[in-house]
């Protein structure tokens, strides 16, 4: 069997259910692949891992992948299992925020580590400075959890529809007490969890063939997971070495993730790509990328995998 190492963007959770399902259900071995899945973490940059030869393929968000490409790391998107963005800004209703304009003068929690690009693009589209001035917003580097909102250290925090949002709800705050702004709804959505490889590897037919089989099996896993959210969540739970995940949370996460993957057969939609790039280029004085990227994606793999 051919060995493939996959580096995830974050820890083992239902966000990556498709890959774990493919592994557990034998979809990978059916394709004669021996896949190792490496969980990510708060300080693991997938781009760095692949550059260091620690992985063959990584899961990353498109903004940071494109930024890395500009930095000289030629990442190429070979598949896009997530059709929609799950990112949103969640605010406490009691702060009086109802529209994005109300954000001025407030303190917002934002994820950094390459995840700040969508937020910065959105703010610059709105013309809101992020320097902490009275007419702008004060930005906090948000940790990994929702405490800043619960402790009222921030008026709004970044959340994913499938994860942090529900942690806020679990903490005892009702949906009515919250106001949310989905990036998708604000027209600034950028593509999330795609599969990326190094450009130079693609010229190797053997590698390309491996990736074709990998993507085929992974998409099979994703579709199975969409159809069987509960079982998929249990599989993820089995693979979680930390033992920290709860069944309730993972099942719910799987259900939400299924909504985001639903529209995708694995092939990147060039329109989504174009929207992501234009959002990123619109970053005002300090755009995430300075020029239209070239060759940042390919259908070569998905074309062969999905025919």
């Amino acid at each position: 069997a051919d060995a493939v190492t996959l580096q995830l963007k974050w820890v083992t959770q239902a966000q990556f259910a498709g890959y774990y399902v493919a592994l557990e259900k034998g979809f990978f071995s059916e394709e004669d692949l021996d896949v190792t899945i490496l969980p990510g973490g708060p300080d693991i940059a997938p781009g760095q891992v692949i550059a260091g030869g620690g992985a063959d393929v990584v899961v990353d968000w498109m903004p940071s992948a494109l930024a890395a490409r500009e930095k000289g790391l030629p990442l190429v998107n070979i598949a896009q299992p997530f059709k929609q963005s799950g990112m949103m800004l969640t605010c406490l209703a009691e702060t009086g925020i109802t529209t994005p304009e109300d954000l001025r003068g407030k303190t917002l929690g934002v994820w950094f580590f390459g995840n700040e690009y969508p937020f910065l693009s959105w703010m610059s589209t709105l013309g809101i400075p992020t320097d902490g001035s009275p007419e702008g917003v004060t930005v906090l580097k948000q940790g990994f959890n929702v405490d800043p909102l619960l402790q009222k250290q921030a008026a709004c925090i970044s959340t994913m529809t499938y994860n942090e949002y529900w942690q806020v709800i679990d903490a005892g705050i009702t949906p009515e007490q919250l106001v949310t702004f989905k990036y998708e709804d604000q027209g600034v959505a950028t593509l999330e969890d795609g599969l990326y490889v190094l450009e130079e590897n693609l010229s190797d037919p053997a590698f390309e063939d491996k990736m074709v089989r990998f993507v085929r099996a992974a998409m099979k896993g994703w579709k199975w997971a969409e159809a069987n959210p509960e079982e998929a969540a249990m599989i993820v739970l089995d693979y979680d070495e930390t033992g920290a995940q709860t069944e309730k949370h993972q099942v719910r996460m799987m259900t939400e993730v299924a909504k985001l993957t639903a529209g995708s057969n694995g092939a990147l939609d060039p329109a989504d790509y174009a929207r992501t790039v234009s959002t990123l280029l619109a970053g005002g004085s300090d755009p995430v990328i300075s020029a239209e990227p070239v060759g940042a994606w390919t259908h070569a793999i998905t074309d062969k995998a999905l025919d």
Partner: protein
Amino acid sequence: MMRSVLPVLTVVGVIVALWYGAAVWMNAPWARDQAARAGVELSLSELVADTMVQERPVLPAPHQVAEGLWTGVTGQKVTSKRSLVRHGWVTLSATLAGFAIGAGLGIALAVSIVQSRAMDLSLMPWAIASQTVPILAIAPMVIVVLASLGIKGLIPKAIISAYLSFFPVLVGMVKGLRAPDAMQLDLLKTYNASGIQGLWKLRLPASMPYLFASLKVAIAASLVGAIVAELPAGATSGLGARLLSGSYYGQTIQIWAALMAAAILAAGLVAIVGLLEKVVLRKMGMAR
């Protein structure tokens, strides 16, 4: 040993009492907020009761942590992924390996610094500089680089743990190896003892009190290093992974239980070093 039971219990008692007080004080705002959102008024006793049982407390009450710790340790088989014993063991093995490497390296460097002027002048400033590099920042790179060299598993973690623990040993040992007074050194000079003999027969024995003070710090540092290294190593198992995964999902009690487990582990390790110190110093006739 027995004589310390009462004092430890007293101190722990005072801390637990303060802790309960702090838990009430810190968790009360949330309880009040929730009551206000629900539109009810809380009596004092209801308020206090609520602060003791919150699911995401700012500060969990001691009994909540104890319960988390207890179920973590005894609630399942030690092979289970939820078992703190298992995670503790993963961390412990990396800690011990790292400590062995770190202490060995620290002593070796200290010896070379004390024996060679060139080493002293060139190495020390850079050993210091090395410690100011934030380990959490470069740990992932170290892991990536080592992994690409085919080194995985325990070793990368041990290396990072050693990186944190060699420094206290180095600093303490340099001091300790230089502690012999002029007359003690002169005596060896009259014998024309070699550098190695001076080291063996004078400098090392004289450095023992310094060494053990440093080893206590170093073994605690090793543990911290092992935990830090567990995050970028794929955050799979170990107390560090447990801590962080607890923190992703806001499971305060799980964080605290893992924290306590780490602290208990460290206290145990430090106590073992302390015991070793007693034995060695007594054997050397230095404990009076």
